[in-house]
């Protein structure tokens, strides 16, 4: 019976290795579309990504910049104290979205405007995305009240 068991073990090894190899290939393929980089406005202005690449733009919603478009969309600027980028969004803003608060927009940048497909919501008014906090701290424009 020992022979049979060794044979099974070999087969098992083959199957698992094959499954893992397939997983690695699929993961590599998935990473091409599935990874979104986080950028601040100044990083985005410095280094323009391809216009079809989904990115996450994070910073503070500039006070006084939120405006309605006649089409029903909304426009505002996301800033990190150094740079600021106009964002366009058609849809329902998250409940806790407001001026002078942190926000993350998911979308594409065409060099002039950021076309957001989603404004990331927060579930908690005290919560600020840690990427935004860190980016603002790096730029030296973080103040505790923002958190």
């Amino acid at each position, binding site marked *: 019976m020992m022979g049979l068991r060794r044979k099974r073990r070999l087969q098992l090894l083959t*199957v698992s290795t094959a*499954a893992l190899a397939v997983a690695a290939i*699929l*993961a590599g393929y998935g990473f091409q579309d*599935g990874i979104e*980089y986080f950028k601040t406005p100044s990083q985005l202005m410095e280094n323009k990504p391809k216009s079809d690449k989904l990115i996450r733009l994070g910073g503070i919603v500039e006070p006084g910049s939120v405006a309605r478009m006649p089409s029903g969309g909304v426009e505002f600027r996301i800033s990190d104290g150094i740079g600021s980028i106009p964002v366009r969004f058609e849809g329902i803003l998250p*409940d806790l979205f407001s001026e002078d608060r942190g926000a993350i927009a998911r979308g594409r940048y065409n060099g002039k405007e950021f076309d957001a497909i989603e404004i990331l*919501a927060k579930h908690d008014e005290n919560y600020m995305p840690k*990427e935004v906090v860190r980016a603002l701290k790096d730029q030296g424009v973080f103040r505790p009240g923002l958190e």
Partner: protein
Amino acid sequence: MMFVEIGHFALVLLLGTSLLQFAVSIVGAGLGWIGWMRMAVPSSAVLFALSMISFGTLVMAFVRSDFSVALVVANSHSAKPILYKIAGVWGNHEGSMLLWVLILNLYGAMVGWRGCNLPLPLQARVLGVQASISAAFTAYILFASNPFTRLTIPPFDGRDLNPLLQDPGLAFHPPFLYLGYVGLSVSFCFAVAALLGKKVDAAWARWVRPWTLASWSFLTLGIAMGSWWAYYELGWGGWWFWDPVENASFMPWLAATALLHSAAVVEKRECLLNWTVFLCILGFTLSLIGTFLVRSGIITSVHAFASDPTRGIFILIILGVFSGGGFLLYALRSNRLVPTGAFGFLSRESALVVNNVLLVVALAVVFLGTFWPVIMEMALGRTVSVGAPFFNAAFTPFMIVLFAVLPLGAILRWKRASPGDAALTLGGALAVSMAVGAFSWVLQTGGDMLGPVGLLIATWLIAGSAADLYQRAGGLRGGAEAFFRRALKLSGADWGKLTAHAGLGVLVAGIAAITAWQVEDIRTARPGEAFELGSQRVEFIGLGKRRGPNYSALYGTFSVGNGDGDAVIIQPERRYYEFAGSPTTEAGINAGFLRDIYIVIGEVHDDGSVTVKSYVNPLVNWIWLGAVMMALGGAFSLIDRRYRVAGLSARLQRKVKAAGT
């Protein structure tokens, strides 16, 4: 009132008793001192009683709105409905950790109570390890997140619970999730106890499996509730977002699912011993990792609530000690577990091995996707997020293969199966599912294959279960009545398997339909305006205001119909919770068996128009229906007579006694 201090004191006693139970039972089992080992059962009842007292006093503080307790002030308000006063207990970090400990000790007491027939050393070791986990988490609560902290100057009223949590779906979500998460600690303790005692056999698997089944069922329900809540409360129109916090509960679920199936092999055939012990340790490790992910906020989540990295460190230490210890013990001892059974290439055993390989590789993919942001940040200092496209590309294919082989594996015989029998049983099911797939492809007039393929797989799973039932109950020999009589006589485990697998099919149908055929519309509309949504006509009638117990709401009224028959009225709301000072969106949903109509309103603009987002979500409720069927399947298996320890045959009991000494 002294209540809160009593709770705090009970927690201190709990820490002491846990440490004592740990030391006494493990030493007693190691040295074979019967009196010491006997302490474990009564002591585990004491642990449960102490956690109950501690948790009970906190509930009392919330119910009575005792605003001298800091936690109550931060998470409650006197005007809040009673259900949410109670749910507020676990709607925050400190209280939810106390719930964690309560459930842990509930399981400990249950093992002590139900496991009277366990061999004494095994029982003592299981309860000893369980007590050490209880000690670690109690210490964590006492020293790093004490829910009983008092305020010197109590305020007049509280700051209210986060409004998103004031919802029945989310009120019950954490207890169920924890019943699942924490239940995996029992399997972990059994694995560690078996490694300490160097003995794993069919009897061991028979004891482990019910606990795994119970926690798997609760975890299934807990995840389903969370997903249901996200669907109707967040107003995003989706039901799963591959968010780190969601993955945190999904990874232990995948491990537990693998464990359920591999424990069946140990129980029936005494193979895969090593692997099953490994899965027990892995399952609980993933529970701890899940707790760590949610509590530390290390990965940005769309569901993030305020989190604290320093708390993460403590959980990381607990994780390191228990999982590290478990895996180390496994590495040292697992080579002593020798399997006895062998099996043919085409057999139930082989099928379950394939099930386990696919589930665990898929689990690895989810793990990679969830932790990739952390890896990237540590290695390259870059901030990235991993989105749904990654999981769709790398996770879904494994599930498709798994579902394709599932009905086949489920009907194969143990040890050696014949391909002819299998083809005979499943031929009809295959034909039906092909027909459903082709039919839906024709109905949607070609195009994307996602929906038709999804429905094909879903039908294959459901029809496969039906074929299994038909064959197991001996077909229509003696007429339909005889068939039903035989079907009802099938064991709980058989019914459990059939129901759970059919439930999976229902779930897959729901996922396929909403993914392929969801209709979405977003526009700005004025009262009186009408628009088309798929085959439906939506009329925006107007806006109104109303009040709830602790919020005020603006609601829109929409009339939706498809021309013939009555139109339905849908009223989405935007609520403003005054005491918490924050708004929430309540989707308006007309739920149905075949489709939901789902409407959300945004802000009102200066010209009186409103942003309106509306969806038709086909078969979306099948997702939760399927999950409930799966959990029900777990429950059916659980009531199977074989798992009632009292029902063990005399032969097995003798074997067990011999094994224990």
